[in-house]
């Protein structure tokens, strides 16, 4: 695949962003601080229906991280977003391969001595945990982590049902979940194998969990308990001013520079924890 790199700088927001397609068609974005970088973070983005809702938040988080001196590496898994491939091609092994390749790109950008952190959003939390398991020196920040694939598939179906009823804007979603918005069968079949309890078993470094509103309390309790079993420390925050997960609100009317606690707290925690890890004990 032929491609080129696009780079642009925003002085006001304090970042430089490089965008490219890798030779195997993965859409890759690296966001650099304008000053010296003190750490790097691999961002495992959300997938399926959550990708539409969370995408801009993740973009803005990567820019906040850069402003805090942390290089942020984002990517779209093959078969999703801007990357090549069809939703039918999505497989857990490909997802992990793409994440590991992004990790290598990040490592080559920040150098061997800089500390790294992982970030995972919704389904991406499972990816971040799978990569971070067994590496207690790597802090992991999670946004609304899904406890396991069966629960997540059920939540996506419920979300669609509620959106059908709640959406008075003229959107007709009678067609149901599109292949790109639902968990594909090849991943759904993995069942409990793809769950926080099994993926985190080798042990995790410090973990930050954020969630929006009070929805999904039962699942949240399960996640907290499972993460707590395997981590050195857990920080949990709830943001009630965030749009609820079922609202279908897709338009994020906030600028990158505006005050946003979810973004500020996540970027500050990742910077602080990566710096702790880089200090000699």
């Amino acid at each position, binding site marked *: *695949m*032929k*491609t*080129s*790199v*696009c*780079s*642009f700088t*925003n002085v*006001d*927001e304090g970042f430089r*962003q490089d*965008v*490219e*397609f890798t030779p195997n*068609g993965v859409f890759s*974005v690296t966001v650099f601080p304008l000053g010296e970088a003190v750490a790097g973070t691999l961002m495992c983005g959300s997938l399926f229906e959550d*990708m*539409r*809702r*969370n*995408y*801009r*938040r993740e*973009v803005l988080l990567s820019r906040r991280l850069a402003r805090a001196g942390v290089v942020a590496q984002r990517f779209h898994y093959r078969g999703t*977003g*801007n990357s*090549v491939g069809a*939703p039918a091609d999505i497989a857990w092994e490909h997802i992990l391969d793409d994440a590991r390749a992004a990790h290598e790109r990040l490592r080559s950008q920040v150098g061997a001595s800089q500390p790294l952190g992982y970030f995972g959003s919704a389904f991406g939390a499972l990816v971040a945990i799978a990569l971070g398991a067994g590496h207690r020196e790597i802090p992991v920040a999670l946004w609304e982590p899904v406890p396991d694939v069966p629960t997540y598939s*059920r939540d996506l179906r*419920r979300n669609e*049902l*509620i959106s*059908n*009823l*709640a*959406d*008075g*804007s*003229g*959107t*007709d*979603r*009678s*067609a*149901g*979940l*599109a*292949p*790109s*918005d639902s968990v594909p069968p090849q991943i759904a079949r993995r069942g409990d194998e793809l769950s926080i309890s099994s993926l985190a078993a080798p042990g995790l470094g410090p973990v930050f969990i954020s969630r929006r509103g009070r929805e999904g309390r039962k699942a949240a309790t399960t996640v907290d308990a499972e993460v707590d079993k395997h981590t050195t420390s857990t920080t949990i925050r709830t943001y009630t001013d965030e749009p609820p997960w079922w609202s279908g*609100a*897709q*338009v*994020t*009317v*906030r*600028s*990158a520079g*505006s005050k946003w606690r979810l973004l500020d707290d996540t970027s500050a925690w990742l910077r602080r924890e990566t710096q702790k890890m880089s200090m000699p004990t």
Partner: protein
Amino acid sequence: MIVHEPLAIPMGDAHAFGILVRPEVEGPLSVLVLPGAGNFGNGGPALLGLSRRLATNGCATMRLDYLGMGESTGGITRLRANSPRVTDPHAAVEQLRQPGRTNLALVGLCYGARVAVETALETPDLAGLALLAPPLAAKGEIGASWTMRAFLRRVARPSRWRNLLQPEHRRTYAHVVRRFVTSRVRSRGTPPQARTPDTQRRPDAWFIEALEQLTARGVRVLFVAGDVDKCLADLQRPEADALRAKLTTPGSGMELAVVPGSVHTFRDQDVVDAVTDLVVEWSERIASTLP
């Protein structure tokens, strides 16, 4: 072999982001694809798929992320269908034209179709305009709040009642009803004019006049709707008589294509494939008339 070029389009202090997909040997027609409103752009990945198909067919094609969305920088104010944004689409048109591409077509989905019409009015030498599920009646912000009418319409569907037999659906519906009642109680003090009036659904004259102006300039218009899309129902209203007549008259410069399913959501793969085929075939017809 097609080439993927991520592009940052400078706009003052901000940058609009686009992905240009082009063949190594370009044909005479270039296309700008304008997504709907949304964090990642409604139909974003599917529209990128459309761009790749068009590029394989010889058209250099750019899909734009509006300012404040996707990978672009900047913040956004409310998106209004009755005053669609034009600054970033115009910048994208200029960017697309820079290497000597003169014949352009615009493709817009939903809100992007309104943007495409507004952009087309100020774009000379435009060859074609494809409107995918364009909102004909749009006087408000994208993403209106719940209305009693919309709620009751959805509750009245037979499938909802069938679903009540299943405990999982019952819990979900109970949750929705609680939320709905809460929102209605909270909005009791809201003045009536702040709620969405039914008159919103009248096709607005601006849109219809703009299409007439464009066809008079020789722009070929393709109107694509799904058989469940609201724009198709709006097209049957008396206010849209003239537009409907043109769309169904051969040689008028406008053509209507209806596909099964929802083009508005652009999520069902069969719909995406059908619309992609239609747009590619339409672009081939336009390209065949160009020097």
